[in-house]
């Protein structure tokens, strides 16, 4: 891909302070947990980038998970629709539907994890909601990078948001062995603000200082904006140098990890995100086979598995490492589909 600058980053991992909410309590009733988390990350990434103007041209691509409507609504509908121990279509179409919040539909539509943030912040550029088991979020980042590279926009948000704390999701994770394998369901969101590479600013000297994106369970940060808050006027904090996905059907995960680590100049650290310790172990072993046993392998710094949000939280962790002096960090993300997503993040210098 054509490299793009990261000029802002925001991370949201509960618990978080009420004042960080992006939407009013009334609007939040139309939002899933993923949408609420994404909206906060969207708002804070824009603020971190200083993008207060021209938002109708800013793009937004987000990796999203399964629909996360509150099960209480389904149960209310269900309870009003049972007759003689069986589900009655006659009751469901009448009392059942009336028992449900009409806004429930907006809570369950997967794309609203992205759309709520776009609506709240007035974004109008190219966009997409991409379902993710891990690498789908990497695909969302690739779309954002290409949108900038192809000239569809010069500023774009990219990230992931998801909640595994849904009864059906937890049941699925349990039944498929992820819970017993050590997976801790969690939730979160992370969004990067991406812009065309800055043509004139001097490198920021490693970008040290300021709060870290993964400190204290989530915060946002950026260096001060320059030049009126537009993309080209903001000092970059990192650079997306490469994005690539290896399909699991073409290459086993371990081999894909080795291919990814070998493809680019050796990174100083590798951040791995994946569904459960088993997958992360395979990825860590693959990294060490290529880079040696002393290779620095890190997680995303979040306790638990945030599914579609995981890769984006990993990018935030990589930016953290770059702010601490690293010049190149490789982020690897795998999900249950076996695909591997790789993002190479470098210092803007």
């Amino acid at each position: 891909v054509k490299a793009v600058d990261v000029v802002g980053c925001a991370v949201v991992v509960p618990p978080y302070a009420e004042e960080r909410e992006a939407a009013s309590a009334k609007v939040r009733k139309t939002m899933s947990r993923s949408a609420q988390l994404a909206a906060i990350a969207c708002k804070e990434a824009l603020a971190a980038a200083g993008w207060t103007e021209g938002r109708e041209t800013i793009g937004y691509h987000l990796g999203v998970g399964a629909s996360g409507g509150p099960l209480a609504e389904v149960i209310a509908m269900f309870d009003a629709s049972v007759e003689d121990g069986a589900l009655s279509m006659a009751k469901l179409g009448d009392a059942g539907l009336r028992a449900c919040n009409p806004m429930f539909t907006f809570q369950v539509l997967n794309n609203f994890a992205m759309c709520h943030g776009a609506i709240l912040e007035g974004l109008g550029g190219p966009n997409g909601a991409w379902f993710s088991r891990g690498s789908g979020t990497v695909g969302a980042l690739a779309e954002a990078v290409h949108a900038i590279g192809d000239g569809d926009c010069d500023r774009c948000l990219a990230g992931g948001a998801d909640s595994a704390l849904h009864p059906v999701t937890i049941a699925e994770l349990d039944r498929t062995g992820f819970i017993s394998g050590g997976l801790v369901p969690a939730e979160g969101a992370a969004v990067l603000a991406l812009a065309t590479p800055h043509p004139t600013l001097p490198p920021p000297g490693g970008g040290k200082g300021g709060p870290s994106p993964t400190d204290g369970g989530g915060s946002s940060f950026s260096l001060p904006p320059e030049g009126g808050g537009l993309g080209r006027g903001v000092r970059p904090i990192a650079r997306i140098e490469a994005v690539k996905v290896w399909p699991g059907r073409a290459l086993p995960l371990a081999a894909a990890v080795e291919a990814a680590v070998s493809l680019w100049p050796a990174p100083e650290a590798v951040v791995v995100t994946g569904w459960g310790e088993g997958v992360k172990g395979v990825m860590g072993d693959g990294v060490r086979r290529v880079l040696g046993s002393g290779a620095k392998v890190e997680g995303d710094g979040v306790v638990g598995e945030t599914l579609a949000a995981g890769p984006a939280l990993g990018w935030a962790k990589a930016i953290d490492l770059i702010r601490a002096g690293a010049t190149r960090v490789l982020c690897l993300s795998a999900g249950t589909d076996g695909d591997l997503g790789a993002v190479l993040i470098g210092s803007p210098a």
Partner: protein
Amino acid sequence: MTGVVITGAGALSSLGIGLPALHDGLARGQSRVAPITVFDASSFPTRVAAEVPLGTIGPSTLAGPLDGLIAGGELERWHARGLLRDRKVVFAMLAAAEAWRQAGCGDAEREAGLSLAVGLEQCFLADFLALRSGAALDWSRDATAPLPEIRYRSTVDLPARAVEQLLGLRGPTTVNASACAAGALAVAHAASSIARGAASIVLAGGSDSMINPLGIGGMSRIGAPSPRNAADACRPFDRRRDGLAMGEGAAVFVLEDEDRAAARGARPLARVVGWGSTQDGYRATAPRPDGAAARRAMERALQRAGCEPAAVGYINAHGTGTPLNDPAECKAIRGALGAAADAVPVSSVKGAVGHLMAASGALELAACLLPLGRGVLPGTANHRERDPECDLDIIGEVPRAAEVDLVLSNSFGFGGQNVCVALGRWS
């Protein structure tokens, strides 16, 4: 940039199974919105829809159409696991198989990627009975519940995984979940990947069905469908329009690098020449009334195609038949095309086949192959009374003969996502 061509297409809609059924039906000006049969909707506020005429779906539904693509007994195993419970899984497989065969794909094409638009997971409400314990649900019963593997809800990417397995695809799979804009976005994503050289062949399209109790019920609760429950429920651009008709179906295309297609002797059906997407950033429940963001999506598609507005020969509108969408879309078209807008015929197929939700953009691109291939512009079923707010050359119920070289297809999603895809004649 590499040229992108469509070398195969498959489609299912209420007009029938297969792309020829869609094209024949549209060319004859047919429409099919009728009382719901796939479940008892008699107590529901919405009781009509545009169902794919497949009846109750099971392994036998698929055995013939998928013969030679899937091993004997595999469909029964999928059925037992619950993989066929969600109709859009079946639709995706059938459309992909048709496109695959029409394009003459074989082993060499299994390198293809897949870019598929899918709708909301289907909720299987009755499954919760197995967990019921008094007024609560006892999730500890899940592990031993007498339910298939796919339970409570289908998984979002199930249609894509089914197509991957069916055709043995080895390329990257991307699943677009952008509601009613998803189908067109999935095709745009595939075209973009090929144009920049990241892929040489991608299957792309969309599949969806919300004709199930919670799909129909949920849309009814937000007042999107027409309240009239009539065969002409959806009346796009008509002065009397009062809502959409729910539809279901799928369309899948084989998109290829033009040189790759030529090298293997494939005969392209059309070129994918432009695309653009924008966000309304306005409201969750309504489109921007000025159509400004949708206009920019169209302008970007034309810009990418390198075409002037006067080159556009036909626009397949999103045209939902809702009070708010249609006039906003007309403003968008007029804004994007300027003075050329008056000379461009516009129609919506949603009166005929309903709103296919996540698959609508893909199905409507399949409809756009009709003017490029047969010189017939689809009509707008149930459009009888002109609306001054929709002051374009809206094609009425009778299809129109015309030779066109460039068509645009608009898709706008709940949540404000807009996409426009431009197709060009291949010659």
